[in-house]
């Protein structure tokens, strides 16, 4: 088995996450799909770190995790704020500018 198989897995997971972001309407599920894309990128970093025998990739993956954690905290707070004012967690309902 080639170490590049991890890269193929990562590309497929990223694509699945991208489909989810576009197709799902629940803001929380959309957010989880974004997390899936970030994780797929992390898997690439770790695999490249191994292919090149260099730990810089792992350090970058570590930073990605920290930034993703920050993003989840702020994003979920925004979802809760929107839910409080609109009683809905659907991304289609927050369309104030369209009307």
């Amino acid at each position, binding site marked *: *088995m*080639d*170490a*590049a*198989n*991890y*890269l193929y*897995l990562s*590309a*497929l*997971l*990223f*694509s*699945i*996450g*991208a*489909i989810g972001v*576009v*197709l*799902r*309407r*629940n803001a*929380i*599920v959309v*957010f*989880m*799909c974004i*997390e*899936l894309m970030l*994780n797929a990128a*992390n*898997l690439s970093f*770790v695999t490249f770190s*191994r*292919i090149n*025998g260099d*730990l*810089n990739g*792992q*350090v970058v*993956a*570590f*930073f990605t*995790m920290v*930034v993703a*954690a*920050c*993003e*989840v*905290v*702020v994003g*979920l*707070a925004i*979802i*809760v*704020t929107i*839910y409080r004012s609109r009683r*809905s*967690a*659907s991304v289609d309902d927050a369309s104030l500018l369209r009307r």
Partner: protein
Amino acid sequence: MNEVALQVGQTAAPEALLFWILAPLTLIAALGMLLVRKAVHSAILMAFVMIALAIFYIAQDAPFLGIVQIVVYTGAVMMLFLFILMLVGVDSSDSLAETIRGLRPIAITAALGFGGLMVSLLSRATLGRSAVGLEAANSDGNVEAIARLLFSRYVWPFEVVSALLITAALGAMVLAHHHRIQERPTQRQLSIDRFRKDSLATAAGLAAPGVFARHNAVDVPALLPDGSPAPASINASLKARGDVLDSARFELGTVDTSADEEK
């Protein structure tokens, strides 16, 4: 064994077994995340994907990242997701109907195209090249090696990231802080309001649920003096869930009392 495997650009046999078992499961879980209707099920499948990725990290000589993945993602982030799901409402299931016409085929085509492009590019770029492996870099231990990098070369990004974490925590607190628009009504005010209503029927409070001496659970409406059930005695959320029993089931005539008569 491991050196030989790395020399020919192949990973060792146990790792291949692990990969070919776990990778399809990961893909199925990720696809299921897209297809299941309830957000809670999506979250559970997401947690599975996260744990699988942690196992992949550990298999790829990144034990520190694997443990961090489990602690941060499956521990903290997924817990936060489930917490917000419970707050927003578990039963708010997602409609999978497309709201923008033609979005679904375009999205699936674009994502499949992107995935195919990535896979074909990767296969061209990496085929025939042997992996170096992390044995040399991890010779002092993975955590020590990462710490050496983190606190020398990446010390400035590390500090910036800590500032980012604090900013995110403060931002979440500011966003989640809830200003009351009206003052919370006091017990005195509630009592005055009750007596100033049009009808005095509920001035002494609503009837408690349950048909006493027969069944006193909260899911049975109380009986009014004329024998009809009192719908106001049932909690509104029980009614919304459809968990209300019919109080006619507990009427005297319907209960079998023959065992008592034999005594």
